[in-house]
């Protein structure tokens, strides 16, 4: 608790006009004390008794002000003046010593409860009270009881009254002002929505919580009693203890930061992240005595920041891993393509040289055998192509790295040209109805050509010789459609859903598998969906199939 707070706490808390009424009444009654019969001769016992009562009165006042909450002891204490006065009158007869309580009371009172200024004023009042009667009476002794004496006493009392009243009132005012600031401070402190703490800097309170508010108790999960008097570091996160000690050592330096981040420990053991800002309380000599700290719980903010950071890190890690996998896949594709195609090249090349007679003329049997080898090698090359395309289509890098534009009509004609020879070999006609009207898709032309080539190759493969393949293409405002229809063997209903799976091979009408890898349609679907399109199949076993590709058009 800061010095100001301590002073505030030990001040008597005024509780209404009753106390001052009693106080003033006692003063007035004291002035009338010479009227008390005093047949008893001066006596040391009475004198001591009177002083004992005064000491008791002072003691009662002191005890009353240290008690909280406020009580009636300090209000009733002035009443003890009356028996004190009685004792003095009995002990001393008519001497001015009968006035001593009148002098002592305000002095003691203000010495105890007031400020230095109040005490000085009270002493001045007392001096006036002592010397004024002496000047008027001309002697240190009161005359025997007479009307003149009573009038004199009333005048003296009237002189004392305003002085005492002024002193009391000024004390009351300052008390009220202090009380108001105390109430305001308490409200601001106790009801603050953020944690508030007063920390000692000196003596037994040094670096301990002296006073804490409700919000701080809630933040720490502890009661005020469990926190008050506890060294700060005991509630500090172990990792921050060193930093906290250092902060304390420099806390009163002019250029030390007044806002810091640190961690405390909740009763449950969890970490509390806090933003602490503080101000310094100094005593009358300007020496720092306390710190008043605002401790804001930023755990939630910290955790959400942390979560965000973690998410970003995780995201980065995942992205990096994906990129690594994609790179591995690309590396593998390139290695595999090199490793497979190089021997294919040399095998096919030598076969070609042999077939062309570069190593001497071949007889028809040798030629037939080498033709078979050549065909097998061509098929093998096709399989390598399929596998590599599949690997590339599955790579998001491949998908995202190309954002180009394809004229669908050009793609369509390139594809039919590619398949034309193959179709002609089987005596198949390819009929094209091109209604694309310059439609363009945001896609790589080479990939789209591969889609159509795969569909057309399938149509050739699964259509009996002399059949017909029809390609119909059209467009509307948003999309273009290309369908490839054959009058081949068709697809069994059970196969329809599975033909787009990788390596899935439907059986032909007589229970045989047709040559191929089972990748062609999987590649088609991968490419089409990569460009936001769809592929549908409509087929009847024995009658033929129609594959329809729909692609969104490029937006200008």
């Amino acid at each position, binding site marked *: 608790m800061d010095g100001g707070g301590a002073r505030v706490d030990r001040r008597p808390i005024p509780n209404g006009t009753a106390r001052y009424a009693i106080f003033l009444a006692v003063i007035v009654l004291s002035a009338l004390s010479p009227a008390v019969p005093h047949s008893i001769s001066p006596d040391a016992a009475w004198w001591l008794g009177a002083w004992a009562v005064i000491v008791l009165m002072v003691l009662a006042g002191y005890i009353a002000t240290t008690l909280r909450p406020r009580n009636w002891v300090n209000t009733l204490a002035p009443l003890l003046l009356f028996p004190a006065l009685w004792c003095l009158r009995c002990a001393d007869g008519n001497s001015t010593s009968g006035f001593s309580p009148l002098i002592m009371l305000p002095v003691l009172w203000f010495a105890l409860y007031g400020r230095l200024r109040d005490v000085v004023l009270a002493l001045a009042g007392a001096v006036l009270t002592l010397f004024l009667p002496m000047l008027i009476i001309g002697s240190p002794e009161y005359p025997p009881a007479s009307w003149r004496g009573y009038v004199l006493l009333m005048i003296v009392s009237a002189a004392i009254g305003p002085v005492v009243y002024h002193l009391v009132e000024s004390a009351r005012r300052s008390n009220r002002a202090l009380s108001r600031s105390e109430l305001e401070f308490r409200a601001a402190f106790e009801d603050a929505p953020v944690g508030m703490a007063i920390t000692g800097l000196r003596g037994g309170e040094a670096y301990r919580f002296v006073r804490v508010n409700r919000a701080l108790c809630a933040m720490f999960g502890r009661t005020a009693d469990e926190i008050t008097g506890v060294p700060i570091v005991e509630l500090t996160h172990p990792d921050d203890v060193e930093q906290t000690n250092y902060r304390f050592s420099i806390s009163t330096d002019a250029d030390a930061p007044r806002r810091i981040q640190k961690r405390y420990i909740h009763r449950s053991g969890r970490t509390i992240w806090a933003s602490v800002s503080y101000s310094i309380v100094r005593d009358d000599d300007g020496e720092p005595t306390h710190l008043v700290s605002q401790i804001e719980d930023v755990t939630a903010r910290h955790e959400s920041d942390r979560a965000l950071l973690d998410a970003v890190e995780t995201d980065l890690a995942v992205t990096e891993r994906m990129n690594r996998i994609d790179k591995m896949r690309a590396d593998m594709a390139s290695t595999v393509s*090199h490793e497979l195609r*190089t021997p294919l*090249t040399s095998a096919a*090349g030598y076969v*070609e040289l042999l077939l062309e007679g*570069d190593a001497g003329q071949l007889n028809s049997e040798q030629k037939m055998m080498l033709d078979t080898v050549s065909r097998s090698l061509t098929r093998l090359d096709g399989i390598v192509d399929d596998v*590599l395309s599949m690997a590339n289509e599955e790579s998001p890098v491949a998908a995202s790295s*190309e954002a180009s534009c394809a004229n669908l009509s050009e793609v369509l004609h390139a594809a039919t040209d590619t398949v034309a020879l193959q179709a002609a070999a089987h005596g198949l006609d390819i009929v094209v109805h091109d209604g694309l009207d310059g439609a363009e898709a945001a896609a790589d032309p*080479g990939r789209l050509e591969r889609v159509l080539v795969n569909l057309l190759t399938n149509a050739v493969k699964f259509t009996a010789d002399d059949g017909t393949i029809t390609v119909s293409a059209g467009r509307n405002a948003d999309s273009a459609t290309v369908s490839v229809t054959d009058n081949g063997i068709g697809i069994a209903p059970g196969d329809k859903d599975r033909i787009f799976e990788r390596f899935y091979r439907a059986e032909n009408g007589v229970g045989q598998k047709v040559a191929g890898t089972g990748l062609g349609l999987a590649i088609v679907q991968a490419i089409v969906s990569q460009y936001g399109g769809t592929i549908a199949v409509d087929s009847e076993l024995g009658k033929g199939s129609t594959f329809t590709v729909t692609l969104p058009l490029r937006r200008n």
Partner: protein
Amino acid sequence: MARILVIDDDNDIAALVGLKLELDGHTVTLAGDGLSGLARLRQDPPDVLIVDWTLPGLTGPEICAAMRDDAGLRDIWVIMLTARPLDDMTLTQSGADEVVPKPFSPRHLSERVSSALAR
């Protein structure tokens, strides 16, 4: 006829290309890796260079880059063989005058060489 240098680390391919081109009447020199290929290139510049993309030592594109910096080699016609999937960027990346994808037909390669020499 012409003098042709073939740089390929695959002996079978190198022999195949060499055989076909010799049958066509050209003089063929073989090199098995990038460094010795470049050394041979500098020592005895050919009319046409046929080089594989993937090579130990220097790769095909690295050899092309080295040739561009050498005034004596800059004008040699370069045909690069590659097993890489072709795309729009392949030719630019290779640095060669033309790229022939593997697998290739020896007859096709021989035609490419003839048209290069006709230039």
